């Protein structure tokens, strides 16, 4: 016989509005084994918590049911509460009558009836709960950061400065990310390189950071505190341990590849560093365009290299590292706007996307900072089109957040560097950031033409070949407009990196509809993920500007630190175990477990589960034909009992 206490929360009116909470408590009191049932305004408040603790002692409770919000919200809170009152934390059951009842109905009859059924299920389940002991594991003190843009760099530096060893993995041959491509940053217009490159250099110099450029994460095993990561070092064909960065090779190389760094606006050598301030300052060979790889002869670079660092035989290698926590900062791509044929990107040379324009402004860019178009001419009139593919139900519903501001920045820079007329075609001007509205106001005074209306189409002028016509409706005047311009700048939707899907899969991260990584909670745990020990920072979680990205990076570093700062940690006790007396030796569990937790003891002819590897999914329990596997906290009995309770009323 259990002694169950039931505590029904009103959550102000959040629950009480559509569930008769006092009736629910009265109902609970009639259920077998329930010795006390109460309702209270805010169960998670201090008086609420104290009431639970008081009643545990007064009524000698051995099970507690909190009927409130989702367990994903407050399970941890109430576990602490009962633990502090001397009860094992796993003897708590949460009944979710807010997210899954009161908030999804307007009918108090329905809401109350469903709450009773759910509560009854919880009572059935609570009776069968068993106290569990959390596992304590050793924690590896190192951290891996995936992606070395500003978010990854900032997080890595922060952690390294606390003395933790950081592996910074970057798929490109240099760190820096998108920020290194920018010229100025809004709203302050400080030079992007000036604020970023010192950090890049810090990374290079930092004794606690192992920089793994031109690398990809190819395998992840283990769990929080003990991740085993396999990293693929892609072949560079240059032995960086020998290379002294003289770059003689890049001068001699006859090969011509497309400069990814300059958004394909120019060519680069086949052996190259992406840009002058690249870190590491050592070249790689682009196999696709290298004359030797294509034609079988050349090897000019090899001839000029005094260090004998060129190695055409180099293969991809694999590096294994162990870390305790992971920060994912894989950043973004711009949406490919070619399929949006109405804007003519890829068809008309005068249509640019925003990153290309960033490079045009950049003094290290293809035009050395002069705004000239693909035909070499300076544009006389420019239209900047906001929200291309974003805030658009046909493509991406989300707002890309930074486009308004960088478009204003572009307008300013165009005004500064050319004499062109600049048009801004926007839906709404979103300038909600520190100093942003001020920046917008400043631009209004810089003779930029603001048209409230989304650019609908870009066509070629029939009268003046080469000139473009931007069609739009000015929604303020309700006038349809055709604006002749030389240059069109598209602000495409910001989307997650194409590769982030693979990373997500490797790390078990959920993604939202747009493919951005899902945070554990949108407000209270914006940097944590559903995978314990894995954190997210920067645009891979959702579009944001540099200040927010840096703030998230710092936050993620702090979150990771909370794990690796301890040498031990507690894990959920909800693992599976085998009852050897019932095991029939079919080895189904061994066959299905994604983590290799069950193993077969050939001597005893039974399966055994290595609890350190078990993540508690319960798959083994459901494939066990003889019900020998006990999925702790979700045992067959507990689930069956809960079902019975749910179906009784």
């Amino acid at each position, binding site marked *: *016989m259990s002694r169950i206490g039931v505590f029904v929360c009103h959550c102000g009116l959040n629950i009480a509005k559509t569930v008769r909470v006092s009736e629910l408590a009265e109902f609970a009191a009639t*259920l*077998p*084994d329930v010795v006390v049932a109460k309702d209270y305004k805010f169960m998670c408040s201090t008086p609420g918590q104290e009431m639970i603790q008081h009643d545990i002692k007064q009524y000698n409770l051995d099970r507690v049911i909190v009927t409130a919000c989702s367990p994903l919200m407050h399970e941890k809170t109430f576990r602490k509460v009962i633990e502090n009152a001397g009860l094992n934390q796993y003897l708590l059951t949460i009944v979710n009558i807010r997210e899954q009842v009161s908030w999804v109905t307007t009918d108090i009859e329905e809401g109350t009836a469903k709450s009773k059924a759910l509560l009854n299920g919880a009572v059935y389940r609570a009776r069968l709960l068993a106290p569990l002991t959390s596992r304590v594991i050793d924690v590896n003190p190192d951290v891996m950061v995936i992606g070395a843009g500003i978010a990854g760099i900032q997080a890595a530096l922060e952690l390294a400065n606390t003395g933790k060893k950081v592996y910074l993995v970057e798929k490109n041959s240099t760190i820096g990310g998108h920020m290194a491509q920018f010229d100025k940053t809004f709203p302050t217009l400080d030079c992007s390189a000036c604020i970023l490159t010192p950090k890049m250099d810090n990374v290079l110099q930092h004794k606690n950071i192992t920089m793994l450029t031109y690398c990809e994460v190819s395998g992840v095993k283990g769990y929080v505190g003990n991740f085993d990561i396999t990293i693929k070092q892609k072949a560079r064909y240059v032995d960086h341990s020998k290379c002294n960065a003289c770059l003689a090779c890049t001068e001699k190389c006859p090969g011509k590849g497309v400069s990814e760094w300059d958004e394909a606006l120019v060519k680069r050598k086949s052996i190259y560093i992406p840009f002058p301030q690249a870190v590491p300052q050592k070249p790689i060979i682009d196999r696709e365009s290298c004359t030797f790889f294509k034609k079988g002869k050349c090897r000019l670079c090899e001839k000029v290299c005094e260090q004998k660092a060129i190695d055409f035989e180099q293969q991809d290698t694999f590096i294994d590292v162990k870390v305790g926590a992971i920060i994912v900062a894989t950043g973004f791509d711009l949406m490919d706007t070619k399929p949006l044929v109405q804007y003519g990107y890829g068809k008309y040379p005068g249509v640019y996307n925003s990153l290309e324009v960033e490079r045009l402004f950049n003094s290290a860019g293809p035009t050395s900072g002069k705004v000239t178009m693909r035909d070499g001419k300076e544009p006389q009139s420019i239209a900047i089109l906001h929200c291309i593919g974003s805030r658009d139900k046909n493509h991406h519903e989300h707002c890309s957040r930074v486009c308004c501001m960088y478009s204003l920045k572009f307008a300013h820079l165009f005004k500064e560097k050319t004499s062109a007329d600049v048009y801004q075609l926007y839906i709404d001007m979103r300038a909600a950031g520190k100093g942003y509205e001020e920046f917008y106001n400043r631009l209004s005074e810089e003779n930029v033409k603001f048209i409230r209306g989304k650019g609908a189409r870009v066509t070629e002028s029939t009268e003046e070949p080469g000139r473009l016509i931007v069609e739009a409706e000015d929604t303020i005047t309700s006038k349809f407009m055709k604006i002749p311009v030389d240059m069109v700048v598209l602000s495409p939707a910001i989307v997650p990196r194409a590769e982030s899907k693979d990373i997500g899969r490797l790390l078990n991260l959920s993604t939202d509809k747009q493919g951005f990584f899902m945070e554990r909670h949108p407000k209270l745990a914006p940097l944590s993920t559903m995978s314990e020990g894995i954190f997210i920072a920067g645009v891979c979680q959702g579009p944001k500007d540099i200040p927010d990205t840096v703030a998230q990076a710092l936050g993620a570093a702090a979150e990771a630190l909370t794990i690796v700062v301890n040498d031990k940690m507690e894990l959920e006790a909800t693992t599976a175990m085998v009852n050897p*007396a019932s095991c029939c030796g079919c080895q189904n569990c061994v066959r299905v477990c994604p983590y290799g937790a069950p193993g077969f003891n050939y001597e005893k002819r039974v399966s055994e589960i290595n609890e350190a590897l078990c993540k508690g999914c319960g798959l083994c329990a459901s494939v066990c034909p003889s019900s020998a596997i006990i999925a702790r906290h979700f045992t067959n009995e507990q689930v069956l009992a809960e079902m*019975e309770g749910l*179906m*009784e009323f």
Partner: protein
Amino acid sequence: MLKKTAIENISQLAAVLMEKGTLLAPVKEVSCHNFAEISDPQKVDLKFYNTLMSPKSAFFPHREDFVKYKVGKPLSEAEHTILNLKPAFLFGVRPCDVKSFEIMDIHFNAAGIIDPYWRARREATTIFGYAYDINQPVDSADFYNTLGIYAADPEGSDIFMVKKDKELLLKSITPKGEKLLAELSALEKASSGDEKYYEDYIKKGKDYKTRFTCVDSEVIAKKIESIFDNTDFWTKMSAACLSCGICTFSCPNCYCFDICDDTLFGKGTRSRVWDACMFTDFTLEASGHNPRTQVYQRLRQKVSHKYSYHVRKYGVISCVGCGRCTRQCPVNIDIYSIIEAALKA
């Protein structure tokens, strides 16, 4: 008293008995006959050799509810099942099966433990024994002769029936049977020819031979005890055994049961459900220990219980040679052959 009826009119007799109480009689199922409570008198069917399941379920049903209770409510609120029985008629029981009731009485209705459920049913029931048809061949699995039972043994029946061509002769054996038979006006009076036929039939029953081995209960009891440790013997005997429960479930003398508590939506029932010593979990103890994990141990237990322990304790073999276990066994294990082999071992 001897009465008779045409077999084709058996449903009329059934209808009369149904008016008086509950009638349990053989009915034809897809490929066998079984005793069942009759709701349609036309369903009574005497064209059977013997039923698949023994008639023990008339007194000892597969499941017997004892107590109904509510989870969380005090014991005082629990309801005990009380049997309110109408008179019952168990119709068409073969002599070996009739004999089994007497053996089962030892366990349920004799000094020591009296099972109210068994007793109530037993007392409410009038048994119509039914001689084997001695004009038909005997089934090769039967061996009731070995246990001293014959094809037309009236002993133990209240009324005993023999088949005469297309007629059924009914003879009262006990005062209870006599009283009932007198009340059954639907039946015709038997002629003196019938009387003679009946007497002859009973006599001829002795010559209707099943398999037979001379078994003295004391001798076999001692013998089986002596080979308890002969693992080779038992392993060999049980090599084919699958450990299913059909032999024990169909046996008229197996009486093991399990007490089960089943609850649904807070309402519970405590009941007695047949169990079988051939099941692996039969002897599973709460500690997890199981003294009989091997097939040979379980088969040895079954044979020893019937032919040795039961003799030691109650003086009789707990087997009537009805042949059901042999007939139903999916792998043709034959307890008669085991006994024969044991005697030679």
